[in-house]
């Protein structure tokens, strides 16, 4: 039984597994990770059964170990996500995600009168609350919270 469950999303020899992503935010997390430029195999599973989350998503990236700063941005949507670093089919390192102090790009400012929504420029936020996700725009100084967080693009 155990073997069958594991194979829902195939195991990788070396690489990174991002687990415990709430199913409803999996696609948002994917957009943050900018996986389109990676050419090694990527396996994505969603709506998998999870005792903690009900339904969860999982992302397995073979042969790659994304930058810590990139992985930490996942905390915008999935603060409980777990990162497993796999070497030779073994988990050699487990990490939790933590929001960085600043978020550059990715997130849209909630304020329609903010300059970032009118000029061709990158957004920039200071993370003022890591637990509840509150981002203060460096430009208009308004606060974007998790409920109204939108990904650019």
């Amino acid at each position, binding site marked *: 039984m155990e073997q069958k469950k594991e194979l829902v999303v195939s195991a990788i020899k070396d690489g990174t597994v991002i687990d415990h992503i709430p199913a409803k935010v999996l696609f948002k997390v994917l957009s943050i990770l900018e996986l389109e430029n990676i050419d090694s195999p990527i396996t994505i599973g969603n709506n998998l059964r999870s005792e903690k989350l009900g339904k969860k998503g999982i992302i397995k990236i073979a042969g790659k170990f994304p930058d810590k700063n990139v992985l930490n941005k996942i905390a915008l949507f999935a603060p409980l996500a777990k990162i497993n670093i796999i070497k030779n089919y073994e988990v050699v390192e487990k990490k939790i995600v933590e929001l960085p102090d600043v978020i550059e790009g990715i997130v849209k400012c909630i304020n329609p*009168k903010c*300059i970032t929504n009118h*000029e061709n*420029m990158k957004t920039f936020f200071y993370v003022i609350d890591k637990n509840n996700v509150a981002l203060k*725009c460096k*430009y*208009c*100084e308004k606060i974007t919270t998790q409920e109204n967080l939108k990904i650019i693009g």
Partner: protein
Amino acid sequence: MKGKSLISINDLTKEDFLRIIDLAEKYQNNSKEYENKLIGKIVALLFFEPSTRTRLSFETAVLKMGGKVIGFDDPSSSSVQKGESLKDTILTISQYCDLIIIRHPLEGSARWASEVTTIPVINAGDGSNQHPTQCLLDLYSIKKTQNTLENLSIMLVGDLKYSRTVHSLIMALAHFNPTFYLISPNELKLPFEYKMFLKERSIRYYESSNVNDFIDLVDIMYVTRVQRERFSDPVEYEKVKNSYVIKSDLLVNTKNNLRILHPLPRVNEISEDVDFTDKAYYFQQALNGVYVRMALISLIFDLV
């Protein structure tokens, strides 16, 4: 502050405030201190929305110091109308001048302008976000009327929810151990985030909807307009609108050193009979704005 931009009141330290205010005072007392300081300098005034008072105040400040101004106050006559980005406008005009003063309806525009150019930028108002020189002139006016900024009792009256000047003043005065008396209709109370800020800093504040409640205790009364369009229920506005009009008979039992400030323009929130009392200070306040802007420009150019 040499070579630096001034975008937000939160960029300034207590020492910065004091340096600007001291220099403004020095300039106001002696024209020899500032004459010809800006000779050879060109300052661009880029007003993407009209604000006559602010523009004239900056222009006067530059001219008094012997500098020259270029710019526009009607974006329909500039290349903005043709769809030019703010970045391109700023990069182009940066080639012509030594300092940019920008007023723009979009929030964050001044910060963005300061990032795309290597010359300093002063924010003269970016939408409802920041207008730091207004705050500096408010502080300078308080200092001039009270001889200190420390330990004062400050009454803020009117629209405390949306008023940019009120929010900036609270942040700036927080450096000087104030006590705030917050007087507003229920619908226009000071937002939660500012009250949290005051609590975190252990700054005393009292709230009321009645101007009479604390008027005998305060050194400064800072009045803002209660606007009809801020009310979701027009009946509520009609009920309260006259409670926030300051009349001279209200001032009878106030402290001798009380002075009334207002960011102007005034509509009807201070009745004209107050103008003739020695507690009215709002017109001198406008003149103070010129000296405070001169001081700021001098510090940016390191001409002190």
